[in-house]
């Protein structure tokens, strides 16, 4: 037993509860760009735990050409893909476009991100432009003079590997301690709160996706999987293409929120595991060996799920102009999806302008094929799976008779690839 001495006896006892500083008046602006689209709940949870009021956490609005013109003009430093290029507009909106000024502009450099595939892939890194985007964009606000300082805004761009939770407290403490006057303990507490918020949100969204699939299974109706990067949810980048499809009555699932429930996935990948094609439902080594990039890995995994799930009869791929991460995946992803006759449509080279006319024509084509072939696709894909599936809980319709090989109809194959 340790013998108490005077200094230890009278020493201030460390409290288990983190010190709480008053940050209720601090207004934090977060550019709603890139992988913030899949991690926003972490940042909300993190800041709330630090005492920042929810109403003082301000996300920039969806990307638009007006936003870029009004707030980002002259701030661009390099020509690259639109999802990165447009960040200048988001920064500008937060710096110049707020009625009530922000105090901190928080633009994290995300090195890695959480993923359902973690442990089954080499890594879950972000794209090099996603992680380095803030460095490139901030240059446009610093090259002539320090715009942030002029506006009384603290610019904070912590380097953080959200995919590696054990590193995050140290990284955020190092990156934000001067901005928020943090101490280590409260950072740790806030990081835990951030992950809890993110996990809760993801679980809820995945649960919703599962309900959609259940509805499709019970009603033998098709749904569409949108295979894209998280920022394609931004109406100015993804151009609401999935919304137009939904308007035709087809439920839409987003790749990022596909259900990860083992009962469902074990059923979909039962045969793959039996013949050793993959070790478990999250293993993508059979289709993608250089599995470093998190979003790319998930795209390949989503393609595998879509190829196997009977009610996902159509995959719509969104890809932005000059996306170097998407480029090597174009053919493999399409081949994975089409191998089982699933419809595949790609909207490639998306940029700042919405090609409304051609999108409308493509939507008509897609819905035509969906209505014509979905029933057949569901029937054929069902035949590859065992009868005891989890979605219907014993209410399976009669098992269809199908041939082992089921190539996509010729007419369908001719139409599946087209670029906006």
């Amino acid at each position, binding site marked *: 037993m340790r013998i108490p001495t005077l200094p230890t006896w009278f020493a201030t006892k460390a409290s288990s509860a983190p010190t709480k500083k008053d940050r209720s008046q601090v207004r934090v602006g977060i550019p709603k760009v890139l992988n913030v689209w899949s991690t926003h709940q972490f940042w909300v949870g993190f800041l709330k735990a630090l005492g920042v009021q929810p109403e003082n956490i301000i996300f920039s609005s969806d990307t638009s050409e007006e936003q870029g013109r009004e707030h980002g003009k002259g701030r661009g430093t390099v020509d690259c893909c639109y999802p990165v290029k447009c960040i200048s507009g988001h920064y500008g909106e937060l710096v110049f476009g707020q009625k009530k000024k922000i105090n901190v502009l928080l633009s994290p450099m995300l090195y890695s991100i959480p993923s359902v595939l973690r442990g089954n892939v080499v890594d879950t890194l972000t794209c090099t432009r996603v992680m*380095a985007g803030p460095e490139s964009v901030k240059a446009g606000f610093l090259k002539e003079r320090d715009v942030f300082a002029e506006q009384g805004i603290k610019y904070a761009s912590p380097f953080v590997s959200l995919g590696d939770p054990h590193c995050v407290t140290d990284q955020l403490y190092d990156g934000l301690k001067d901005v928020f006057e943090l101490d280590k303990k409260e950072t740790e507490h806030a990081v835990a709160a951030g992950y809890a918020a993110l996990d809760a949100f993801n679980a809820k969204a995945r649960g919703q996706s599962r309900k959609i699939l259940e509805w499709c299974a019970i009603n033998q109706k098709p749904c569409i999987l949108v295979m894209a990067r998280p920022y394609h949810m931004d109406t100015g980048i993804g151009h609401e293409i999935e919304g137009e499809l939904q308007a035709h009555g087809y439920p839409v699932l987003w790749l990022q929120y596909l259900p990860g429930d083992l009962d469902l996935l074990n059923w979909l990948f039962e045969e793959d595991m039996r013949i050793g*094609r993959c070790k478990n439902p999250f293993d993508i080594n059979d289709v993608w*060996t250089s599995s470093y990039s998190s979003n790319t890995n998930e795209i390949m995994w989503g393609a*595998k799920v879509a190829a196997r799930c009977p009610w996902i009869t159509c995959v719509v791929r969104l890809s932005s102009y000059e996306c*170097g991460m998407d*480029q090597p995946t174009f053919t493999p992803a399409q081949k994975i999806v089409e191998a089982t006759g699933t419809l595949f449509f790609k909207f490639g080279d998306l940029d700042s302008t919405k090609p409304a006319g051609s999108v409308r024509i493509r939507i008509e084509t897609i819905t035509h094929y969906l209505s014509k072939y979905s029933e057949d696709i569901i029937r054929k894909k069902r035949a*590859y799976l065992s009868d005891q599936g989890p979605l219907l809980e014993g209410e399976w319709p009669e098992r269809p008779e199908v041939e082992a090989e089921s190539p996509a109809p010729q007419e369908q194959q001719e139409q599946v690839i087209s670029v906006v």
Partner: protein
Amino acid sequence: MAQLATLPVLPSAPHYTAYKPRPFKREEREDVTLLFGGLTWKHERMMQGVLHNLKYKAEPLPNIKREDLDVGKELIDTGACCPTIFTTGNLASFLKEKSATHGKEHVNNKFVYLTAGACGPCRFGQYHQSYAMALDGLGMKDFRMFLLAQDELDQGEGEGGGLQINMPMSLGLIWSILCGDVITDLEYRIRPYETVPGQTDKVLQESVEYMYQAYLNRPLQGGKWGTMAWHLTTDYFTKALGEVRKMWDAIEVDRLRPKAKVKITGEFWLQTHEGDGNYNIKRWLESEGAEVIPPPVAVWLHYLMHPEIRKLERRQSTSKHPQLEHKLLQVLEKVYRGTYNRFRKALANIPYELPDQIELINLAKPFYHFELRGGEGHMLVGKALYSYHHKKAHMVCELSPYSCMPNTMSIGSMANVMGRYPDLLYAPIEVKGDAEVHALSRCQMILTEAKRRAQQEYEETLKETGLTVEAIRQYEAQHPEVKKATYKVPHMGHAGEATNYVLHLARDKQIARA
């Protein structure tokens, strides 16, 4: 999982699977040629010596040609960066040519391709996807391609045992790359000043052949650690480089030619390459009156191995002794730099020293975080500022492939650097492979100012020292050793070779003023 085996067999779905090469068997080794490429002909010739020494048949792919770009474009998905397209087209052109002569089956069985893989988030680590797609397009899915991880010295035996990526191979290849670097540095420091045109290239050719023989006859040491100990302690390579130095002694140079010194940086393949892939920009710069500082591959390897930079990569490490591993890496890094310096010393210290990676990190810090991976990361910013602060070059020419993801980000950050250092001459050149005039004319705009600065600096130094060209010529006639290519002119605080030479003669050699 045990339950799965008892389930009824279902109709098998025709699922897609990625390219997987069939095994390369040990007994095939004598008949099968390893193809490789991606560096300069000098590096590749010495690497060939290493592979021949290990009893492999090995052949570098032919140097990249403009036509390879068209061949590559036809075979892979649109939107690829030009290094991907060029290297894919290069491999495809070779395979097509060989197939036309010997048939596809022969090529599938008698050649394998060895390429670098694993580069984190950048597309560089995914080039092999494009190669696989090209093989599919050529109807040669049976052709075998294997990946060589850049960060593992001992990857063991590949499936079939035909290819053993072990210590003798890895260290041999690294050592040959280091020798290729120092000889390349020598080449670029000498050629602009040679008095007999073409002599440098001739001696270069002989030097590389000499080094090929040195690698071919490398004494093989037993075991993993024996090989490592031998490579770290032997004077075998420094002696060979010493012989090379004697060859270069014969070249006479005229250093009183003020030339703009141009530091080449950029994306790894594009900056290293010498040929159509980057519009032959290094030769073009020389023809325009510049002295080029080529980027050594050694800097890239140094970056990959540096313990501070790699810290985050070990975040998933399950090692029981992380501190010990870190210390070992620190020792390894020191040994690596020491080896490079030994090779430089064998060539009279004329090749440039490796920049201090910690200094690069610190220089880049306000502009680009050093842990941002992909491509050259913070090094492009760091190297530009290193050249600027140490007055190593008049101008930085950054070669960036069109749509290169990491390069575009550091170029963006350079806007901030340029705001802070407006007199830094920086030419980011986007290379598509088929827009030569545009790229070169852009480079020329900055080069004009660099040349003006080089001339001005030279003239001011002459004035300041009171030396005249005639006095220097007279000194050279009396001391012919200063005209030797291997005479080391120390860096006297200026970028230009001519300026440093004048200052060196004035201060160190005490030439009388006019």
